[in-house]
């Protein structure tokens, strides 16, 4: 075989291999993309809380516990019997972030809609009895508007509605079950302040999102 033919053969094989790998990657990415409907991303997440449904509802209606639970990251204001206004708090500077309106639709069902925030989003939460006496399933459906690029940047930066939802569900579960959200940020270490800041960033990455 001439050297020219070898080059063409290698080029052909390389192109075929790249196309094959690209196709597998694209298929895998497509499989992991959330559903899109009318320009909205739609994700469904759930977490099982080892408490009866009444106890889970009781958590939301116990204002003192709720305020204590939300203290670091949101404030809550009741507008009327079934409507609430929630304002997120940026843990970095303590200032307000987005605002949302929460409406109770019935026993164990509520809706929320972000009225002022960087990403338009709305969602619904439903409480369902878990099988085998395993407590209560908190099932959430979130819809948010973002371009694929913005979503990718949000995921990379750890600032994305789906990540926030999963994080919130896990926090809620922990608060209802054991009354606290465990934290190791201030545990002793032999790190310099600069190393500690870098480690805190790793902690954030390892804490944000998850499987809930």
């Amino acid at each position: 075989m001439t050297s020219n033919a070898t080059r063409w053969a290698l080029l052909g094989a390389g192109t075929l291999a790249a196309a094959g790998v690209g196709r597998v990657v694209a298929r895998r990415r497509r499989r992991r993309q959330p559903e899109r409907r009318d320009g909205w991303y739609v994700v469904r997440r759930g977490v099982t809380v080892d408490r009866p449904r009444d106890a889970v509802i009781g958590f939301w209606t116990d204002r003192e516990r709720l305020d204590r639970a939300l203290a670091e990251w949101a404030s809550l204001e009741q507008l009327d019997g079934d409507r609430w206004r929630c304002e997120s708090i940026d843990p970095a500077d303590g200032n307000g972030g987005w605002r949302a309106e929460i409406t109770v639709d019935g026993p164990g069902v509520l809706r929320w809609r972000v009225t002022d925030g960087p990403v338009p989003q709305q969602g619904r939460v439903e409480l369902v009895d878990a099988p085998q006496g395993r407590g209560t399933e908190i099932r959430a459906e979130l819809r948010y508007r973002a371009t694929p690029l913005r979503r990718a940047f949000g995921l990379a930066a750890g600032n994305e509605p789906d990540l926030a939802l999963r994080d919130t569900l896990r926090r809620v579960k922990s608060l209802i079950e054991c009354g606290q959200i465990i934290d190791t940020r201030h545990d002793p270490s032999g790190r310099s302040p600069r190393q500690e800041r870098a480690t805190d960033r790793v902690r954030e990455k390892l804490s944000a999102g998850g499987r809930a």
Partner: protein
Amino acid sequence: MRALCWEGVGKLAVRDVPEPRLRADGDIIVRVRASSVCGSDLHLINGYLPAMREGDVLGHEFMGEVVETGPGVRRLRVGDRVVVGSVVACGACWYCRTEQYSLCDNSNPQPVFTEKLWGHSPAGILGYSHAAGGYAGSHAEYIRVPFGDIGAFAVPEGVPDDAVVFTSDALPTGWMAADFCALKGGEVVAVWGAGGVGQMAARSAQILGADRVIVIDRLPERLATAAGRLGVETINYAETDVLEALREMTAGRGPDACIEAVGMESHDVGPSYAYDRVKQAARLETDRLVSVRQAIMACRKGGTVSIVGVYAGLVDKFPLGAAMNKALVLRMGQMHAQRYIPMLLDRVVTGEIDPGYLATHPLPLEQGVRGYELFEKKQDGCLRTVLHP
């Protein structure tokens, strides 16, 4: 305060670090009186579990004295002498309520790493990397223990610190390994590894009804200790073909139950072991599976293989065909400390179990680096180094 910190792969140093403070109502602060090195620390130190950060305080097997309690602590008081389970458990989730404490849903604040690696996140573990929550460890003068009422247990007077310390981890791990075997009485049990956990597994198997226990290792002094202290039979795998020896010792049947108490850095001799070393060094596999393979191949048909040696990720040449076609029961897991510690403390108090002999090298915390060197290189007959801050 002084603490033994991880400084990078294979590097440790004793440093000044800030003292811990109460962070939640259920926290307690314990002044550490004895903190043991553990074989699983070596996996962290040597970078096989890539979730350590420079400056992390090591150590998870310890006992000490309560010096401060959060307002929500009910069962313990300042001044109590306690042993603390290395696994952190909230005591309130479904797993904790069913006594599967090492699977606690709420005690790992950094679950994303293990969720991606293993599908779900198990419990946090003190001093055990950021995969297990990033908790500061016990090789320090003081340690914060979350959910103190759940994880710390008051120790009766009269039992020395260096015996009590092993009821934190080595003894409950060994007990759980034997418990997994569901012994009915009269069985032959083989135990891979004559370290602290292996010897405690052997003793536990005897108490739970095994007629014969055979311990396998390559270090003559450890095998001699096991034989002398526990009255077990031994096999030195550096000198003897383990599978042949076990077949012969059981008249062809194989052991009824095989306990693996070695973990991801297990040793062997021969070319297949060299192949595993190369693959692990090149990070083409995370764990060496030598002793699990042997356990599966040696176990009698329909027997149980119980794995308590620590594995982290992916392995090569797992003999699934042997396990499947011999209808083996495989059981494994991190130990459920809180389930076993009270019962084991009682057995230590009565003298039925005496884990104190494992503490061959008590050393001050300042000599922690030397302590790990003795332990890792198996120098001077070191079975366990116990650090005293």
